[in-house]
């Protein structure tokens, strides 16, 4: 009764009953891959720096899990950040970070891969490396430690975490990971020191080995020069992408969790990229060009996935469902399929036209959740500045139509702190809410059941966007703006306002445009106890500020400075395919209030098509 595979397994068994949700830490889910030891020659521990419930909902990880485990002698194993209760026990009982598939220490793997999708997860990345029993700085790790390779959207500016990774994988991982494993196979056979593997990685497109580059700075703190320390390292690291979505690997038997997770349902990605060109949006730039999966392939994936998982819900994924070229055909088909197999369907971000109203009318639960508009800015002038292609006429006519069909709730998304924003633009947010309220009154005669939810997030300038040079608002400015909107909205009882935490947005802004000098700050923040910074109950702004002070790094230098067009940017080594000149001209057009059309209506010469086909 008391037999265990290993001492570690015994410690885990003794500990997990003392924590919340033990099922987070034991694996064994349906479709989890566990290969016989003697058939495995390379092991990858794939880490996600947040809780199991969040990580299990991440499609990217499920895709790469499949890609890696499809290689016969590779075992890819999952590892998530333990919650604070389990972490305390792990440290006390000396349980190292381990993988769910084999319950072996991460440290025993060949590669510890980590995907980072959000700036506020960086302390968790470091904490996980520490829990694994490794040194945080790559230079301090030994020959016997696994290679740490970091990927995910956050690595489009890898510099704030550059000194912790042995390598970064920039862009989409489906094709690059098998190439990495081939290099690993060769390297393992050669018996050469670790550095030789890193050199070999430089031969793979999209791989960035930070130790082969050195940054020099000017007296004012800006970057003077980026120098290569290994002559065969690439001058520029262009992102990797999948060209053909139909032949790209996609999990039809994803791991099905026991406990409920954030997105506990079948999911199919219908396309990547976005052509709209909103100037604040990093996703809109880094995922270019648009690549669609065919409706036939999507259907095939959905059928297989539903059969293999038994999920009761299906969701389709993309940056904006409504922009899929054959959306009516696809949605009609999937709705029929779902009806036949007793599965409910959720359809995020449809465009509001007569077709979508018909669809939403059919899908249960839609009316309850309400209509959603990403308006982003309170005036047409400012929407032109940010190149957000939505008009008030459209919002009002769609709202009227929804109300006539018996809808009662609407959600509006805005941003505060946009470049060139005035108080008038902010007042426009309240005006739009008021106008919608009046339309409801016209349709229904009274305010009755109407509920309008206005959500205001804070603008964070992101690398690889036309707005990458702009300064970010101060905390005080954000707070003043939130107050302003709040006071204007207050008289309207049917309108509810929520806004993001300014301190979190500030730190997000600092980390987003950080450089290598920030690495020591992150180590200090972790030492002071920062973790799960994306979680309100854990985020400790004071500790962060102390970490900056203790390491002599000025966060304002990164977030609140107007960066120069001619400056070398920390992320200049990394390429998205989009030309820096395009960002620059878009920035200039923003200042002039000129719009740039959706590039489906004609190429806007962003440059991506010189590297990839559009």
């Amino acid at each position, binding site marked *: *009764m*008391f037999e265990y595979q290993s001492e570690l397994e015994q410690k885990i068994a*003794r500990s*997990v*009953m003392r924590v919340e949700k*033990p*099922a987070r830490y*034991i*694996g*064994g*889910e*349906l479709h*989890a891959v566990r290969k016989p030891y003697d058939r495995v020659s390379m092991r990858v521990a794939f880490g996600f720096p947040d809780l199991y419930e969040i990580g299990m909902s991440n499609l990217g990880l499920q895709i790469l899990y499949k890609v890696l485990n499809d290689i016969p002698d590779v075992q890819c194993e999952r590892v998530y950040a333990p919650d604070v209760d389990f972490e305390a026990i792990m440290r006390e009982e000396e349980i190292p970070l381990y993988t769910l598939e084999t319950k072996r220490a991460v440290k025993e793997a060949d590669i510890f891969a980590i995907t980072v999708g959000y700036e506020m997860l960086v302390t968790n990345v470091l904490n996980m490396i520490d829990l694994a029993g490794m040194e945080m700085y790559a230079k301090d790790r030994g020959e016997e430690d696994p290679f740490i390779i970091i990927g995910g959207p956050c690595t489009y500016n890898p510099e704030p975490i550059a000194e912790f990774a042995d390598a970064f994988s920039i862009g989409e991982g489906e094709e690059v990971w098998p190439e990495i494993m081939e290099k690993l196979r060769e390297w393992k056979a050669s018996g050469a020191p670790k550095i030789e593997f890193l050199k070999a990685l430089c031969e793979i497109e999209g791989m960035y080995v930070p130790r082969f580059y050195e940054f020099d700075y000017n007296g004012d703190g800006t970057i003077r020069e980026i120098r290569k320390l290994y002559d065969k390292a690439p001058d520029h690291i262009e992102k990797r992408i999948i060209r053909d979505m139909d032949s790209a690997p996609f999990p039809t038997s994803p791991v*099905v969790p*026991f*406990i*409920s997770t954030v997105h506990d349902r079948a999911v199919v990605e219908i396309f990547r990229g976005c052509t709209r060109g909103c100037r604040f949006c990093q996703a809109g730039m880094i995922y270019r060009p648009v690549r669609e999966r065919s409706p036939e392939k999507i259907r095939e994936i959905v059928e297989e996935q*539903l*059969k*293999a*998982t*038994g*999920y*009761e819900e299906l969701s389709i994924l993309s940056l904006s469902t409504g922009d899929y070229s054959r959306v009516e055909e696809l949605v009609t088909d999937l709705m029929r399929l779902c009806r036949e197999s*007793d599965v409910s369907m959720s359809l995020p971000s449809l465009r509001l036209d007569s077709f979508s109203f018909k669809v939403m009318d059919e899908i249960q639960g839609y009316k309850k959740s309400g209509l959603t508009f990403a308006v982003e800015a309170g005036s047409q002038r400012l929407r032109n500045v940010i190149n957000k292609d939505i008009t008030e006429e459209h919002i009002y006519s769609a709202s009227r139509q929804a109300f006539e069909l018996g809808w009662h709730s609407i959600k509006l998304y805005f941003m505060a702190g946009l470049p060139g924003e005035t108080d008038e633009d902010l007042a426009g947010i309240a005006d739009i809410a008021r106008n919608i309220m009046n339309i409801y009154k016209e349709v229904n005669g009274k305010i009755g059941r109407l509920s309008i939810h206005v959500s205001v997030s804070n603008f964070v300038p992101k690398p690889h966007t036309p707005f990458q040079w702009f300064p970010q608002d101060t905390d005080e400015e954000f707070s003043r703006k939130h107050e302003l909107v709040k006071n204007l909205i207050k008289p309207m009882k049917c309108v509810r306002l929520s806004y993001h935490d300014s301190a979190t947005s500030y730190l997000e802004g600092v980390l987003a445009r950080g450089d290598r000098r920030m690495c020591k700050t992150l180590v200090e923040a972790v030492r002071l106890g920062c973790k799960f910074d994306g979680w309100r109950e854990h985020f400790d702004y004071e500790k962060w500020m102390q970490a900056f002070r203790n390491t002599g790094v000025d966060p304002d230098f990164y977030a609140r400075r107007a960066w120069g067009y001619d400056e070398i940017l920390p992320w200049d080594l990394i390429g998205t395919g989009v030309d820096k000149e395009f960002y620059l001209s878009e920035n200039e057009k923003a200042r002039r209030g000129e719009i740039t059309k959706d590039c489906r209506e004609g190429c806007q010469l962003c440059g991506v098509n010189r590297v990839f086909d559009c």
Partner: protein
Amino acid sequence: MKYLIKWSKEGDMRYISHLDIMRLFQRAFKRTGIRLKYTEGYSPHPKMSIAQPLSLGYTSRGEYFEFETQEDLDPEAIRQRMEDAMPEGIRMLSCTVLKETKKAAGALITRGDYDVGVRLAKPEEYEKLREAADWFLSQPSVIIQKVQKKSGKIKEIDIREKVRALEIDSQDDYLLMKLKVDTGSASNLNPEVLLQILRERMGISGGEMETRIERAEMYAESAEGAEIPLYLLK
């Protein structure tokens, strides 16, 4: 048709809660394509239930699951298809047809057998455990006080009368207690409650006793008044 599946929960599956097991079964049925009957009314849900939910952390080789299907199927075929749809550690041991009575088979349960493995920090404590068990069995009654969930009132419960048998076997490096205890809606005893009493008698804390609890079987009263394992129920 109404069926009863006897199943087991092994190894790490002991950390999967009752609620999550319900979802696991529901999705497993979806994967097999076996269509369950649904209740009528405003929010229909599939007709299925797990008898006497097991505590988190226990394994079992005597779990039961009953359900109604839309079509009549061969019970062995159901068992095989469900077995194939389950992750490692959840096994379908048998499947039998039940009479379509109103009452759930689970509601007929009266007794449960458990194997309790006990490991103690110090060797001399094994003897103390045997003594504590002998003491317990020699008592006419052992009363504990329990706070009622709903009313908050304190209720006295006799644990002694709920324990029908307690045998102790020595194993290589642990003691195996074989328990037969009241299980069911009329009278129920969680083995952990008994262990707590024994620990108190021995004067040790929970941290000094490592336990493994496995449910071996559950029994119900047959029409003839005999106690039979649930899978023999017709």
